[in-house]
């Protein structure tokens, strides 16, 4: 079982620490609430534009996560590197099994489709290279 700290867990811990530290400050603010009414309302924080490729990335990472736990060792290593390149990671249990040739072929095709559909040229390059990496291992299997 892998138990490396995940980014989500780290963010969650950071949020909890922030909330605990903020509690005394919040009670302090309520003492002089009349001053708060005089301060101008801060402008709303601008919302980051949605990444148009995010649904595509999510679909690809879901497929890789589905294959990774039971893939043979060389394949799980490949899929871990793929997830890292996509900005995520897998921390679950590995139970290496037989190669699912059909599923890996389907992933290769999904990566090629994703490459064709990606808005970001860098993502297109990455997905094409990932498809090529899967094909190399399929060719050797």
């Amino acid at each position, binding site marked *: 079982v892998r138990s490396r700290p995940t980014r989500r867990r780290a963010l969650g811990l950071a949020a909890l620490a922030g909330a605990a530290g903020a509690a005394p400050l919040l009670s302090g603010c309520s003492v002089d609430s009349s001053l708060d009414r005089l301060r101008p309302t801060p402008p709303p924080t601008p919302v980051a534009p949605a990444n148009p490729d995010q649904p595509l990335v999510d679909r690809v990472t879901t497929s890789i996560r589905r294959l990774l736990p039971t893939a043979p060792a060389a394949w799980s290593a*490949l899929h871990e*590197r*793929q997830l890292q*390149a996509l900005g995520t990671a897998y921390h679950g249990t590995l139970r290496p099994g037989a190669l699912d040739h059909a599923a890996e072929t389907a992933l*290769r095709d999904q990566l*090629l489709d994703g*490459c*064709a559909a990606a808005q970001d*040229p*860098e993502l*297109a*390059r*990455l*997905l*094409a*290279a*990932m*498809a*090529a*990496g899967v*094909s*190399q*291992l399929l*060719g*050797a299997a």
Partner: protein
Amino acid sequence: MSGTVDALQAVLAGEHAAVYQYGVLGGRASSSGLLVRLRTAYDAHASLRDSLAERLRELGATPAKPAVAYAIGSGWHTDAALAAAAASLEERCCAAYVVQVGAVGGDDRRLLATALVEAAVRSTGFGAPAAAFPGLRL
């Protein structure tokens, strides 16, 4: 459109070189097994060359012409050396394809991505090590 034309012209120039070099490699191979693999690779690159030239004409561009000759390796005397040269050639093709994949869209991108996949498989067939991201340096 000029970005697409430039990208396809760059890949076409590489295909001219690959076809030339596979011709030299094939002419020096002694084992029939290697000769078949070199011939298959030659055919693949010649096919891609022709597809690119046709696509460029569709786009109103004049396809890049091949050079008169291309540099060849100095140690291409044994089948092992020929296979290593072919593996290296395919790896360089992978790097060229992956650069241009992001510079084009639609069917052109799919054409180059498919070429990348096929070149990556050929490279390991000639003895190159498998890579997680053929053509990319991550």
